[in-house]
């Protein structure tokens, strides 16, 4: 399986995990700009997915802060600090805990600039492990889905080390609040250990680079059907697409990389070519980015479609603990494959 993205630059590359790539990104940005600092729970020992491992030694306690368990408090504090010229990065142990700070995001962080007529800006990155990973319903939210509709936020969901690093650096330099949602299975850490799985690894250039926010990426070219998938689902969709390729079906697989802003044009261009669309996301089927994308295509490009738009997503239930149930709920390769074949059959 080829899920990593080789850079077009001439730089030599190394194979890193997503969390290693993210750590390079945060270090480079802290070195570049001393306004950048990181706060969160237990980040001085590395944080729960090892995003901040080693950061305390390099940047000291003034720029690497352990917080109390006070999510609304420290999100609000980061908003205030950003308004006064700092550039905070908040590391969440699990993205799921951000809901206790929801008002600070929906009402304050995303609205203060607008309500004030542009008097303030809030450069603030939220590092959010997202998705299900065998821990039961309260630790399995697709965080990006919940925030998807809010104006004033940007939302990134990288799937490869290359994208993760380049997008994270762009997020830190962006003058807006950015939710940076990485699937828990993609970091390449297991508890307090690095334990890379194949999906968390990929090539990353030695030289510095950025990946712009808001640009999708065609991870596999194809001509028969367009498949749009992000995060963990991108890997599953690519596996399916590659298997189908050998059976003679050519699927184009697009990773939006950012949900907001969403590169709808890239999808529309592909659909104009293929006339068929399947959308794969991990979150609940109701009200996610997949519904929005389907609705946009049904508004703007319906004339190009030769078949219904199928969405593969979790059913509208919380995520159950038992591994057999979790696996039944989260889209797997067979459900993705069946959806593609169903659309092709139409």
């Amino acid at each position: 399986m080829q899920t990593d993205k080789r850079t077009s630059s001439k730089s030599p590359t190394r194979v890193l995990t997503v969390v290693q790539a993210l750590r390079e990104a945060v270090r480079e940005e802290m070195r570049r700009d001393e306004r950048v600092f990181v706060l969160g729970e237990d980040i001085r020992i590395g944080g729960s997915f090892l995003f901040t491992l080693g950061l305390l030694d390099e940047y000291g306690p003034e720029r690497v802060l352990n917080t109390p368990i006070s999510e609304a408090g420290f999100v609000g504090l980061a908003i205030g600090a950003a308004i006064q010229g700092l550039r905070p990065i908040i590391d969440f142990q699990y993205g799921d805990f951000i809901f206790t700070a929801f008002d600070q995001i929906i009402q304050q962080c995303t609205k203060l600039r607008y309500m004030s007529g542009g008097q303030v800006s809030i450069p603030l990155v939220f590092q959010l492990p997202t998705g299900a990973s065998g821990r039961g319903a309260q630790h399995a939210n697709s965080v990006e889905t919940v925030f998807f509709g809010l104006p004033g936020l940007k939302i990134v969901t990288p799937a490869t080390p290359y994208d993760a690093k380049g997008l994270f650096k762009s997020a830190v330099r962006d003058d807006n609040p950015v939710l940076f949602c990485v699937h828990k299975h993609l970091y390449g850490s297991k508890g307090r250990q690095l334990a890379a799985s194949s999906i968390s690894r990929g090539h990353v250039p030695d030289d510095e680079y950025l990946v712009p926010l808001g640009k999708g990426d065609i991870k596999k070219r194809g001509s028969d059907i367009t498949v749009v998938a992000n995060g963990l689902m991108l890997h599953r969709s690519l596996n399916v697409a590659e298997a189908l390729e050998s059976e003679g079906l050519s699927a184009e697989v697009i990773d939006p990389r950012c949900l907001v802003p969403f590169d709808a044009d890239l999808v529309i261009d592909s659909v104009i070519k293929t006339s068929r669309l399947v959308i794969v996301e991990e979150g609940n089927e109701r009200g996610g980015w997949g519904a929005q994308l389907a609705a946009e295509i049904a508004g703007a490009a319906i004339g190009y479609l030769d078949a219904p738009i199928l969405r593969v997503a979790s059913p509208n239930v919380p995520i159950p603990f038992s591994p057999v149930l979790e696996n039944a709920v989260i889209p797997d390769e067979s459900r993705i494959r069946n959806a593609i074949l169903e659309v092709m059959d139409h």
Partner: protein
Amino acid sequence: MQVLNMRLPEIPDVAPLADYDAGLLTETYRRMVLIRQFEMKVNELFLQGIMPGTIHLSLGQEASVVGACLALEADDVITLTHRGHGQALAKGLSADALMAELFGKETGCCQGKGGSLHIGDMSVGALPAIAIVGASSPIAAGMAFAFKRQETGQVALNFFGEGTANKGDWHEALNLAAIWNLPVIFLCENNLYGVSTHITEVMAIEYVAERASAYGMPGRTIYGNDPIIVYEAVRTAANRARAGAGPALIECLTYRRGGHKRDDPGAYRPQEEVEAWFKTDPIPAFRDRLLQDPRFSTSVIEDLEASVKTAIDASVDLAQASDTPAVASALEHVYAD
């Protein structure tokens, strides 16, 4: 179930004004009168159906906000509440820009996008107001965090009401400020009510300032209808904060003259309580004190009052003459580029 423990005001002895600079005293009175007249005018415009939106008046609470803001430096920053007109004017926000904002005009301090609940002006250190109770406390702590990190010597002051001290965000903010020793002052305008709800219905302790010890922070309850008492308390806390000694909680006992918002007659307040507090109206009280000082004459005071009135009338004219914002501006300022 609800027993109203009527807290009647106790007016403490006040220090003579002779020790204070005449300029400071004049400015104190001018800002209190400005707030009073501004809000009386706003009330009138609202009753006439000329002014849009919803408004929460701070009539009666002028001494607390003016005393607090004058104790700060110009580059110190305050956060405002839903009851923010007085706080904003006390910190130096232009009455013209404020009036225009209430009218939703493009000359408003937020270009008409904020309205009464979100007024502010960063250039005078007034963060655009936050109308969600409690949400401003962590943000104030965050601004103080930046001041400390950048070693600017600035202080942040967070205005909030006594009802707000029951919100989780407030709790988290006080703890963060305490453990990180941030230069922030939590200033409670305790007017005994959150909307219709008396403090005794929602807290089993007497004073909000008693909570300070739960965070390891100094807390004080003071009479809030004398601007000099408030000025002194905030000055002390600000000096302490600037010296690196961390945050403080100051609770000013005061009272609303009207209801919670414009459409509320405040009928839930017992007559005895209303009468007792109304006698402590900070503006005539401070005026009397000024007139006891040989440096102030009736004519000086009356001139000041008249000039404020003229300025406010002018701000109404200006606001009414101003353009409404261009419709396209509704799509601006969502993101910074």
